[in-house]
C-alpha cells in the first residue's frame, strides 16, 4: 500500500515540486512574458465554454430519455453514450477535415453559390470556440450518464408527490429533479472538465494554445522541464479545484433518496412534432459527438483506400503497452478499492494519490516522470523509457480501474463484513474470501476501461515513448499533423472501435442495474 502511495504520487509531486523550485529560467521568462496569458486565458475560456455546452447538451437529453417516451427513445438512450468511445483528437481531426476551407462542406457551399473562399464568412473550426464545441461533443456523456442515473434514482414517489402538489412538468425538472440531481451533475461536469483541461491532441491540432499544450511545448520546443513544470503548477491548481468540485456537497443528506419504494417509470408520451423534436435533438447530439465524425473518417478511408498494412507495428505496440499498463493499473486499482473498504490512513492516501493522477493531464505526469528519471541520473532511452511510460499510465488511470471494483464493494452491505467477523474470519480471510470476490465482479469492466484508456492516451505516449514504439494514437496524430489525413483515418477508426467495447459493456451494465444502485 505504501508502495502504491509513493508510486502513484511521485510524478505528480515531482512535477509540482519542480514547478516551485525551478525558479525562473530563461524559457520561463520568455513564456511568462509572451504566451502565459494566452495559455491561461484560453484554458479558462475553453473550460467555461465547454462546461456550458456540456450542460446544455447533456441535461435536456438525460431528462428527455428518462422521463419521456418518443420515437426511437430506447435506441437513442444508448446512442447518446457512444461519443465516449472516440477521443477528442479523433473528433478534431474529422471536423477539421470536414469543415476546413478545402473540406466538403465549404467546397459544396462554393460550388452552389459560385463564391470564392474570400467572399463569405464561415465559422473557423481551428479556434477556441471550435475546440470547445468539439470537447463538449466528446465529453457531454459524463454529465448525461450522471444526470440520467440521478433522474432515474430520484424516487418516482418524490416526483409523484410533486405532481399531486400541483407541479407542472417544467417544475418537476427545475424544482425537484434538477436540485436532487445537482451533486451528480456537478460530479459529472467536473470529470468532463478534468478531461477537457487534460486534452492535448484536440487543442494542439486545432492550434489553440491551452496550458496543456504549453506544458508540452515547453518540453518539446525549449527542452525546458522546469518551465513546463511551472506551467503545470497552474494545471495542478485547476485539478485540485475540479477535484474539490467533484466532492462538493456529495455527502450531504439533502439529495439522498428518501423513499425506498421503486416503481417503474411511467414516461410522459411526447406526441406529434414534440416527439420528433425530442428524437431530433438526441439524434443531433449523437451525430455531433460520434455519427458525423466517424462516418467522415470512414468515408475518407474508403474513398482513398487508406493503407492498413503499415499499421500492424503500431497496433502491436498499442496492444503491448495497453496490456502491460492495464495489468499493473488493475492490480493498483484493486489494492486501492480493497483499501478503501478498510479506511485506514494509508489507504486513503493511496486513493487520493490515484485520483490526483487522474485529475492531472497526462502531459504533466509525463513531465513528472521525466523529472524523476532526471533526478535518478537516468536517460530516456530503451527500457527505461518504456518502464517510465507504463508507470505514468498506471499513475494516470489506476483510479479508473478502481472505480468499478469499488462500486461493486459499495453495493455489499456493511453487515456482510460484520457477519464474516462473527463467523470468526480473520482480516486476511475476509479480504480473500469476501471482499476480493465481490470486487472481482467489477473486474472485467475495470480491465477493459484501463486497456482502452491507455490505448487512447496521447500526450504522455508522445513525450515518453522510445524510438520504434509508436502507438496507434501517436500514428493517428502524427499523420494528421502532417496533413496526411487519409492515413490517419484507419488508426483513428481502430481506436474508436476499441473504445466502443467498454462503452457497450457499460451501457449493458447500466440497463441491468436495479434502480437505487449506482452502476
Amino acid at each position, binding site marked *: 500500500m505504501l508502495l502504491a502511495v509513493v508510486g502513484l504520487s511521485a510524478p505528480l509531486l515531482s512535477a509540482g515540486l519542480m514547478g516551485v523550485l525551478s525558479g525562473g529560467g530563461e524559457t520561463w521568462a520568455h513564456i511568462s512574458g509572451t504566451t502565459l496569458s494566452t495559455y491561461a486565458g484560453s484554458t479558462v475560456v475553453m473550460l467555461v465554454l465547454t462546461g456550458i455546452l456540456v450542460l446544455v447538451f447533456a441535461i435536456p437529453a438525460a431528462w428527455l430519455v428518462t422521463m419521456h417516451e418518443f420515437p426511437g427513445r430506447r435506441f437513442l438512450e444508448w446512442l447518446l453514450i457512444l461519443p465516449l468511445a472516440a477521443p477528442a483528437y479523433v473528433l478534431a481531426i474529422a471536423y477539421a477535415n470536414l469543415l476546413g476551407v478545402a473540406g466538403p462542406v465549404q467546397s459544396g457551399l462554393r460550388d452552389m453559390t459560385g463564391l470564392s473562399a474570400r467572399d463569405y464568412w464561415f465559422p473557423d473550426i481551428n479556434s477556441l470556440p471550435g475546440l470547445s464545441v468539439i470537447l463538449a461533443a466528446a465529453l457531454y456523456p459524463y454529465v448525461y450518464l450522471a444526470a440520467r442515473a440521478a433522474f432515474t434514482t430520484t424516487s418516482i414517489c418524490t416526483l409523484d408527490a410533486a405532481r399531486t402538489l400541483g407541479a407542472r412538468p417544467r417544475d418537476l425538472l427545475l424544482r425537484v429533479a434538477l436540485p436532487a440531481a445537482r451533486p451528480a451533475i456537478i460530479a459529472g461536469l467536473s470529470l468532463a472538465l478534468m478531461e477537457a483541461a487534460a486534452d492535448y491532441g484536440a487543442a494542439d491540432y486545432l492550434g489553440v494554445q491551452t496550458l496543456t499544450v504549453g506544458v508540452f511545448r515547453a518540453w518539446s520546443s525549449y527542452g525546458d522541464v522546469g518551465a513546463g513544470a511551472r506551467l503545470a503548477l497552474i494545471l495542478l491548481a485547476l485539478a485540485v479545484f475540479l477535484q474539490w468540485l467533484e466532492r462538493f456537497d456529495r455527502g450531504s443528506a439533502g439529495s439522498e433518496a428518501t423513499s425506498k419504494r421503486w416503481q417503474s417509470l411511467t414516461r410522459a408520451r411526447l406526441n406529434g412534432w414534440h416527439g420528433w423534436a425530442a428524437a431530433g435533438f438526441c439524434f443531433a447530439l449523437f451525430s455531433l459527438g460520434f455519427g458525423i465524425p466517424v462516418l467522415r473518417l470512414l468515408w475518407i478511408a474508403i474513398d482513398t483506400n487508406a493503407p492498413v498494412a503499415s499499421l500492424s507495428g503500431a497496433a502491436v505496440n498499442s496492444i503491448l503497452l495497453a496490456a502491460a499498463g492495464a495489468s499493473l493499473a488493475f492490480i493498483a486499482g484493486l489494492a486501492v478499492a480493497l483499501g478503501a473498504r478498510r479506511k485506514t490512513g494509508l489507504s486513503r492516501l493511496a486513493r487520493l494519490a490515484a485520483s490526483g493522477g487522474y485529475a492531472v493531464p497526462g502531459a504533466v505526469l509525463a513531465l513528472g516522470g521525466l523529472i524523476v528519471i532526471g533526478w535518478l541520473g537516468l536517460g530516456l532511452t530503451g527500457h527505461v523509457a518504456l518502464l517510465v511510460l507504463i508507470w505514468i499510465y498506471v499513475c494516470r488511470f489506476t483510479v479508473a480501474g478502481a472505480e468499478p471494483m469499488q462500486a461493486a464493494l459499495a453495493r*455489499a*452491505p456493511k*453487515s*456482510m463484513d*460484520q*457477519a*464474516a*467477523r*462473527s*463467523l*470468526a*474470519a*480473520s482480516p486476511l*480471510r475476509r479480504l480473500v*474470501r*469476501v471482499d476480493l*470476490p*465481490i470486487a472481482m*465482479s467489477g473486474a472485467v469492466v475495470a480491465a477493459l476501461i484501463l486497456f482502452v484508456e491507455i490505448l487512447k492516451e496521447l500526450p504522455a505516449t508522445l513525450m515518453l515513448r522510445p524510438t520504434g514504439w509508436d502507438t496507434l494514437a501517436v500514428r493517428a496524430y502524427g499523420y494528421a499533423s502532417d496533413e496526411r489525413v487519409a492515413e490517419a483515418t484507419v488508426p483513428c477508426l481502430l481506436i474508436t472501435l476499441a473504445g466502443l467495447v467498454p462503452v457497450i459493456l457499460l451501457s449493458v451494465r447500466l440497463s441491468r442495474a436495479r434502480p437505487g444502485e449506482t452502476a
Partner: protein
Amino acid sequence: MIEAALSACGVTKKIGATTIVDGVDLNLRPREITALLGPSGAGKSTLLRLLAGLEGLDAGEVTIGGSALSRPGLTVPPEKRQTGLVFQDFALFPHLTALENVRFGLPHLTKADGRALALSWLDRMQLAARSGAYPAELSGGEQQRVAIARALAPQPAAILMDEPFSGLDPALRGGVAALTLAVIRDAGVPALWVTHDPSEAMMLADTLAVMQSGQIVQSGPPETVYRSPIDLAVAQALGPINEIRLTEDAGVALVRPEDLVLDPDGPIGATVTSVQFTGPTWRLLAMADGQNLMIDLPASTLPPASGSAVHLTIRSRS
C-alpha cells in the same frame, strides 16, 4: 458447545453527550430466547452491537460463562467471541452458494466434514434442496433461513438477531420465525432477538425484555409482562390498553381490551361509539365518564349496536 449464559451488567454506551444504552442488566440463559422490545431509538440495536463486540462500551461488563468479553478498554472482537449474528438484510455473501455461505464459518473442518455439517444445518432449516443456489436465486424467507443456518453452524456460544424477520413478507414471517426459533432453542444457546412486533415476541419468545430510553424497564415471561406491566408505557409497548379510573381515590387500573366484558350488573356504564370487526373479535369503542374505552368481544358473540348503552365489568384473573 459451551452452555453458558451471556450476561450484560451495567452496560452503558454514550455517543457524545447522549447516553444510548444506560446501565443495562440482562441475563441470556442457554436454551432460552429473549425478545428485546421497544420503540425505535430505545437503544435495542446498539445493545445488540455491544453484546456482539461491534462497538466498545463506556461502562459495565459483558461476560459469557463468567469470563469478560467487553468492559471499558477491552472489547474482544466479533471474530474471537463466538457469537452468531443475524441481520435484517440477511448479509449473505452474494458470490457463495447457500452451502458455501454456511460452510464459511467452518474453515477448521475438512472439506467433506464441513460440507456434511453445513448440509445438515441447511436440512434443519428445510433448505437441503436449495444448497446449490446463490443468494440472488433464493426468496427472502430462504435467504434468512440460510443466514440462520450460517450463524448456528459454527456452534456459537450465543446468537444475536437484529430484527431478523422484519424484511420478510408478512405471509411468510410467522412460519420462518417459528421454524427458526425452534431450531435455535434446540441448539441450546442463549439467544437475543431484537424485534418491534409484540405479538410475535409474546408468541415465540421465552422471555420479554422491554427497553425504553436506553434502559430495560421490565423483563420476564411474556404473560407476566403482558398482564402485569409495571407502567403504562410498558403496557402500551405490548398492545392496546385502557386506563380506567374506578373511584376518586383508587388510582388508575390498566385493563386490556379483552378483559372488559359485557355484564348487565357491571359497575362501569358506557355508551358504544363504534363497532369494528377485526376477524377474531369485535372491537368496541365506548365512552364512559369522559374516558375512551376499547373492548374486545369474541367474534362469536352478538355485539351491541353503536349508540347503545352498556354495562361492563373487569374480568378478574387470579
